[in-house]
């Protein structure tokens, strides 16, 4: 799970405030603020295509963050995350279409409704652990997908539901360039929220449940409460991500919320690093860019011997699926702590350069 943070020798914390600070050094805080300010200029610099990739990273990053709470921080297993993501998308579209609630409020509301559903499916977590729980969430995935296909009043059945574009105080934020700022705001808020959650009593309780649930229980942590709560939290962020996704595409169809999407979410947090908040974003970026770079590679290789052998043009979808599976296996076998760990090592290497200790 989370590896040790590399703090230079002699850096002793003398107060609890110093121990639980969000940024370990002033430089890291300034770098983060500078990074967010810099990325605000992205819509003016990048083309539509890169911008849409950034938006996707943001949206999926929020949902993956939720999954990281339940898997990375609480140590439970959820294989049904995409269904919650889809539930959030449909809920937000339904709320804005049916009741005329402004989209601005629909997104957090969708998160709350999805969280309620997540709590219901988290109830088995109260009694089960480990692989039994994994199987329960697998069932949740199939049951929710079946519900989407069945509940025509809610999802439109086979006809995709339409979702209103995002608007604030009457100003409609249509188009990628404006929507980018909406997603960015949500990403910043969600990541700050979770960072602070982990610093709080509840966050520490979640980590205690992961690390040693018996000891946690002995110290007075209500296991049932925190296991179920982690599912609710995960579903909340999945719902927010799904709602953003719905208003981004402005149409929600039944496709794309299946088990393969759940596996991609799991891949994001495993590649990024279980129990690492910034790692989640790195893993998401990796998983969003992987299919794109494969697409790009297949174009670059067109007509070459490799292309002839693999039949890239027709089979790129299968190769992409295979690549996802292989990447997961490679990371689990060789880098179980994910990109976040690798990033820390790179940072430590340059900090200590040219002496390795």
């Amino acid at each position: 799970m989370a590896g040790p943070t590399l703090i230079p020798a002699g850096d002793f914390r003398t107060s609890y405030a110093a121990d639980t600070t969000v940024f370990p050094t002033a430089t890291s805080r300034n770098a983060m603020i500078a990074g967010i300010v810099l990325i605000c200029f992205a819509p003016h610099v990048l083309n539509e295509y890169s911008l849409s990739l950034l938006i996707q990273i943001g949206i999926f990053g929020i949902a993956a963050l939720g999954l990281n709470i339940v898997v990375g921080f609480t140590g439970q297993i959820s294989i049904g995350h995409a269904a919650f993501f889809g539930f959030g998308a449909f809920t937000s579209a339904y709320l804005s279409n049916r009741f005329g609630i402004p989209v601005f409020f629909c997104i957090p509301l969708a998160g709350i409704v999805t969280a309620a559903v997540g709590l219901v499916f988290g109830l088995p977590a109260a009694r089960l652990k480990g692989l039994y729980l994994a199987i329960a969430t697998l069932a949740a995935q199939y049951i929710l997908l079946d519900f989407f296909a069945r509940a025509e009043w809610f999802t439109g059945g086979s006809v995709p539901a339409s979702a209103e574009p995002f608007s604030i105080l009457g100003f409609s934020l249509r188009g990628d360039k404006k929507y980018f700022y909406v997603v960015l705001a949500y990403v910043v808020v969600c990541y700050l929220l979770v960072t602070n959650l982990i610093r709080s009593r509840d966050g520490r309780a979640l980590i205690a449940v992961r690390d040693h649930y018996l000891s946690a229980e002995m110290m007075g942590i209500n296991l049932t409460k925190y296991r179920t709560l982690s599912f609710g939290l995960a579903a909340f962020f999945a719902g927010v991500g799904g709602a953003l996704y719905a208003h981004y595409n402005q149409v929600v169809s039944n496709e794309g919320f299946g088990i393969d999407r759940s596996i991609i979410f799991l891949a994001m947090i495993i590649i990024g690093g279980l129990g690492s908040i910034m790692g989640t974003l790195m893993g998401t970026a990796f998983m969003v860019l992987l299919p794109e770079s494969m697409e790009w590679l297949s174009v670059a290789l067109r007509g070459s011997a490799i292309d002839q052998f693999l039949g890239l043009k027709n089979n790129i979808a299968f190769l992409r699926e295979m690549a996802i599976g292989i990447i997961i296996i490679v990371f689990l076998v060789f880098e179980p702590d994910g990109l976040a760990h690798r990033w820390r090592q790179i940072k430590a290497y340059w900090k200590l350069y040219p002496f390795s200790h």
Partner: protein
Amino acid sequence: MNTQLLIQLLINGLVVGTLYGVVAMSFVLIYKATQVVNFAQGELLLVGAWVCWWLLTKYQVPFYLGMPITLVFMFLFGIAIQIVILRPMIGEPIISVIMVTIALSTVFSALMKWMFGVNLQPFPRIFETQNINILGLQVQTVYLMSLAVSLAMMVGMAWFFRLSKYGLAMRATAFNQQVAQSLGISVKSVFAMAWAISATVSAVAGVVVAVVNGVSAGLSAYGVKVFPAAILGGLDSVGGAVLGGIIIGLLENFAHFLDSEYLHWGNLYEIAPFYALIIILMIKPYGLFGTKDIERV
């Protein structure tokens, strides 16, 4: 009430259920021996069926040769998976092991789609398909064949575990790894053998399904149906898995009957096992015959 349809569907359920039972049995075998929850069980069926199909259609190998070649291949394939992928994962947290098998299932299903396409391919005819009349019911011979093969596999498995030396070693390992090791059992080879046998048995089930319905990517759905079956029977009970499989098969078809005759909700056939799964997990998580974990949460 349409009794004719009900009985027909229940027979259907019995046939499909025994197949679920066989797959669940091979799933439980891996879980019991190596503590790995194999999410790629359905893909083992798929690989077995495609390999057999490939030998029979592309190379025109007769069935009595093609089948043993497939089984030998799957045996080695199972060993290879265990040694290359699962062995380095020993001692890792459950989530990692589960993720590896999920990733394996993604890789295999994509690989099979890539190699053989996504369309349903009919299996070369091996048996003459005809209907025979049993007690006034029309039953296809392939169904009887499927039932017979499934039962034979179950009996074979029972014999293997009860009477053979290797089966005894495997049971000992499942019971207590360290004690088994101290008695001179090679736990490594038991692990590999568990995967090998599981893959082989799954391949037989895969070929049986392929003979009845043809080969397609949809075959891996059997791997998902394994979970309701295995949980119902108890995750570490081989006999329970068989019974669980049969019950799930019957339940599925009974749900289909209720749906088509009375409820008309549609698609209940597909989803009923998962509702059953949630209910079982809520009220009796260790299943009918599973070992109760004393340490309650």
